[in-house]
């Protein structure tokens, strides 16, 4: 950016610091890392969903020239400790949860198509894959567990024998007076709403290099991750290497969307191989491995009974939630735990008085359930679909039912059922602004007229409220949430340049740019003179989740802002001694400290750094010469993210194709540090929602076979099906004196499936179509229309 003296960097569309390397092919992603003596790995994987592994013969594979080693599950088992996912951060023993023990590779059984059975290490990936072709395995087939019915059927075999059945978790939740609320109701509206299995699909899949140094007995893991420290914490106990001898390095990461928050079983096997061979071992998955084995998300459903009044007020809901958690639980966030988030996050911006839920998560012979951008998204989908279902039954317009149910700021209820205050909520403003932008009444007239021509237009609306981080809750404390405070280092180096060391691990969010924008303003230094460093556990502050959960906007920016402010005070204190001026009379502009009103009296930060290094005697005895601050930030007063989305569609009832005519977003993410980056997050999130509804499905046959292992089967949205987005902002309510940047990564993804499906049902309502699911590709639209017979 061209720096105008005194101009603020925050709020400007500063060009990203990341882009010159990314655009010219100089990014460093995991497969670009080459280490001396490096070997290449491939995993031999199960082709069946559920079987006892009678034998695995790797002898021919070992004989192949170029093969260095082959490890079976039994061999890995002897060199590692069994793992119970979630143990390290205590997510394995949530109430009602059952957690199996397992190893990196399959031993006695295979549990999904893609389950790793053996690891081949060779001179090249080509040879490693050749060797996989020579492995001969013998399966004793077991009945597959694919559906909820299979999982709850006691006659089907347990996937983990020691657990006895296939129930991963059961839980009950009751909040508010459910009976009183139901007794006030005029009617009960029932519906079953489901979400299909789909997945993150970053363009760069998973990959790691394990590199054991036999001399220092240190293990370095280069990996594609969102959370370098988490990888280290989870790996150490399994391979019995002390934490301090494991270093995790991550460079550019080609997307993650929640997938890369923890440790993968494959990483454990790679570490074992490198320690055994004393050489670096690289594994980069191919797309088929990624789709079948990296992780999948969202397969959930809810049976609902809603207590409503005849004028459309949703008083209470009883829900029976199910979640299909797949096979091996994800480490450290077992999929079953997300079942609770559907009831826990259901309220959103509504005034609902009570929620009662029974949840059941089941194991199945499918890939591991993982977090995906807004892992509670089904809660928003269910709520916003249910509001439309109630509206249709009561013949109320969807916008009006939202006007009746969404809270009004500073009017009761002032807090959610959970106790989280509604302080600063702007849902109603976003709703009205969105309705005006799409010309709600005018659309209804056009919609009506179009039907006479056999054209079916639809308008869907949905709102959300996201605690990113949420207003400071007097009952709970800091807004930082369960992941704790954010720690950052900000320092002036010997050459006078600024270095930020963040605990974030950006993978597309542009934190090298945004954190430097915040520091530039606070310190008064040039944006170009700031470097943001991350991705090396030897230097970065420990973080459970580095970049995830829409934390960075508030937490990382807040940490940088306050640490920079403290550093500025130190700089002013030193300069005050050198210029013999009162610190209060000093200012810093473009990296130069000067006396206000007499710009001739000044000193650059470069010069100050030089004096500290070379002429410390010029400074008073005992003054702090350390131009380095470690800041810890608790989220301050926090604040809500949220907004309203409107989707306008036309459905072709001959072909079942849905065309998105317009997509309008009115959102509140506080103060945008860089509006261009905010818009990118919103558009990207909505596009994943479009994919979820119109294209993507991690499809399994009833026999448990995986049916979507290529991009010909797992369809992603492309340029010709994604519209231009109209993004608008509401006037945010600032709750904190300094930090009102709020998370924006997840919002687009969590609310867009509801806006799109609501629009499709709105279009097809005159034809009697009821939408109770999220996946609506053309074939399914034709089934709902009765044009083709449902399977």
């Amino acid at each position, binding site marked *: 950016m061209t720096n105008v003296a005194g101009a603020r960097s925050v709020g400007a569309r500063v*060009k990203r610091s990341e882009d010159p390397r990314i655009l010219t092919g100089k990014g460093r992603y995991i497969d670009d890392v080459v280490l001396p003596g490096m070997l290449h790995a491939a995993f031999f994987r199960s082709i069946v969903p559920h079987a006892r592994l009678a034998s695995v013969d790797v002898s021919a594979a070992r004989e192949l020239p170029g093969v260095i080693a082959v490890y079976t599950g039994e061999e890995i088992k002897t060199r590692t400790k069994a793992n119970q996912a979630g143990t390290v951060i205590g997510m394995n023993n949530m109430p009602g949860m059952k957690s199996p023990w397992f190893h990196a590779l399959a031993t006695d059984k295979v549990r999904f198509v893609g389950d790793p059975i053996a690891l081949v290490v060779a001179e090249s990936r080509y040879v490693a894959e050749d060797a996989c072709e020579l492995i001969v395995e013998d399966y004793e087939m077991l009945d597959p567990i694919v559906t909820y019915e299979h999982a709850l059927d006691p006659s089907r075999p347990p996937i983990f024998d020691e657990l006895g059945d296939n129930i991963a978790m059961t839980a009950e939740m009751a909040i508010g007076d459910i009976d009183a609320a139901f007794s006030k109701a005029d009617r009960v509206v029932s519906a079953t709403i489901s979400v299909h299995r789909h997945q993150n699909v970053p363009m760069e899949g998973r990959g790691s290099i394990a590199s054991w140094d036999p001399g220092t007995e240190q293990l370095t893991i280069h990996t594609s991750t969102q959370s370098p420290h988490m990888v280290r914490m989870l790996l150490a106990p399994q391979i019995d290497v002390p934490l301090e001898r494991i270093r995790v390095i991550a460079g550019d990461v080609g997307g993650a969307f929640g997938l890369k928050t923890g440790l993968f079983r494959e990483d454990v096997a790679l570490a074992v191989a490198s320690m055994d061979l004393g050489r670096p071992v690289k594994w980069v998955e191919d797309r088929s491995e990624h789709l079948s084995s990296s992780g999948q998300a969202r397969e959930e459903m809810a049976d609902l009974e809603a207590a409503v009044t005849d004028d459309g007020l949703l008083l209470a809901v009883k829900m029976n939630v199910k979640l299909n958690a797949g096979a091996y639980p994800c480490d450290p966030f077992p999929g079953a735990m997300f079942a609770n988030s559907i009831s826990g996050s259901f309220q959103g911006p509504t005034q609902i008085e009570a929620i009662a839920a029974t949840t059941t998560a089941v194991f199945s012979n499918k890939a591991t359930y993982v977090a995906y951008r807004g892992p509670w998204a089904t809660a928003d989908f269910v709520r916003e679909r249910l509001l439309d279902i109630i509206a249709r039954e009561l013949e109320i317009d969807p916008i009006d039912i939202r006007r009746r149910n969404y809270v009004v700021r500073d009017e009761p209820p002032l807090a959610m059922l959970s106790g989280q205050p509604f302080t600063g909520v702007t849902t109603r403003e976003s709703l009205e602004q969105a309705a005006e932008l799409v010309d709600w009444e005018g659309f209804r007239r056009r919609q009506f007229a179009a039907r006479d021509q056999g054209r079916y237009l639809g308008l869907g609306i949905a709102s959300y409220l996201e605690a990113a981080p949420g207003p400071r809750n007097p009952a709970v404390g800091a807004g930082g949430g369960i992941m704790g405070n954010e720690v950052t280092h900000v320092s002036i180096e010997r050459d006078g340049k600024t270095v930020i060391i963040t605990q974030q691990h950006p993978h*597309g969010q542009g934190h090298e740019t945004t954190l430097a924008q915040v520091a530039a303003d606070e310190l008064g230094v040039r944006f170009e003179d700031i470097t943001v460093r991350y991705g090396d556990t030897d230097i970065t502050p420990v973080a459970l989740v580095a970049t995830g959960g829409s934390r960075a906007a508030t937490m990382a920016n807040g940490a940088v802002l306050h640490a920079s402010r403290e550093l500025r005070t130190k700089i002013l204190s030193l300069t005050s001694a050198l210029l013999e001026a009162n610190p209060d009379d000093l200012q810093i502009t473009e990296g130069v400290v000067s006396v206000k009103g007499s710009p001739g009296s000044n000193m650059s930060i470069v010069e100050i750094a030089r004096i500290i290094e070379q002429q410390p005697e010029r400074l008073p005895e005992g003054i702090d010469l350390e131009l380095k601050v470690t800041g810890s930030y608790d989220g301050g007063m926090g604040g809500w993210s949220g907004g309203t989305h409107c989707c306008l569609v036309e459905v072709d009832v001959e072909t079942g194709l849905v065309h998105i005519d317009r997509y309008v977003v009115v959102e509140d993410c506080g103060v945008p540090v860089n509006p261009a980056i905010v818009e990118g997050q919103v558009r990207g999130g909505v596009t994943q929602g479009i994919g979820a509804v119109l294209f993507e499905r991690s499809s399994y046959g009833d026999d448990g076979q995986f049916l979507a292992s290529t991009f*010909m089967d797992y369809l992603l949205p492309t*340029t010709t099906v994604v519209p231009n987005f109209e993004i608008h902002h509401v006037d945010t309510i600032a709750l904190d004196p300094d930090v009102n940047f709020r998370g924006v990564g997840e919002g687009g993804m969590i609310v867009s499936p509801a806006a799109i499906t609501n629009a499709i049902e709105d279009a097809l309502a005159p034809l009697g179509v009821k939408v109770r699911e999220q996946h609506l590709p053309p074939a399914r639209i034709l089934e709902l229309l009765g044009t083709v017979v449902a399977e």
Partner: protein
Amino acid sequence: MTGEQAIRLTVNGTARSATAEVRMTLADFLRDRLALTGTHLGCEHGVCGACTVLVDGEAVRSCLMLAVQARGHDVVTVEGLADGDRMHSVQQAFWESHSFQCGFCTPGFVMSTVALLRENSDVDEQEVREALSGNICRCTGYQSIVEGVLLAARRAREEGSVL
């Protein structure tokens, strides 16, 4: 399997020579044998477009072409566009448009765009969207990429920037 074959070709304007097995893809050859890691592999079955390079000026998926097929041909990768520290006009337009996020699909979009605009810089939004429909980006929702292409196209038409 067959042994290594000698392959001579031109890459980014320079004569290069290395060996590869017959089955080695052009993408792996560029990455592993010539250390040009700007070309990315996103699917290895010709759908995502991340590995797009120019072969004799045409956009080609280097995951679907064998290195031996590129013998004697002229290959341009994403590393071959900038002039020292000066970005290519398409790269510059993408930078100014905030076109990308994680950057993994980016080299493919850059190369597809260069091929498109060299053929015809008088393109409208719909033509850009159709031309880039074989490149997948998971981060951006495409709007910022399309804006970048249109900016580069306009500069080529109005300011004569080199494509």
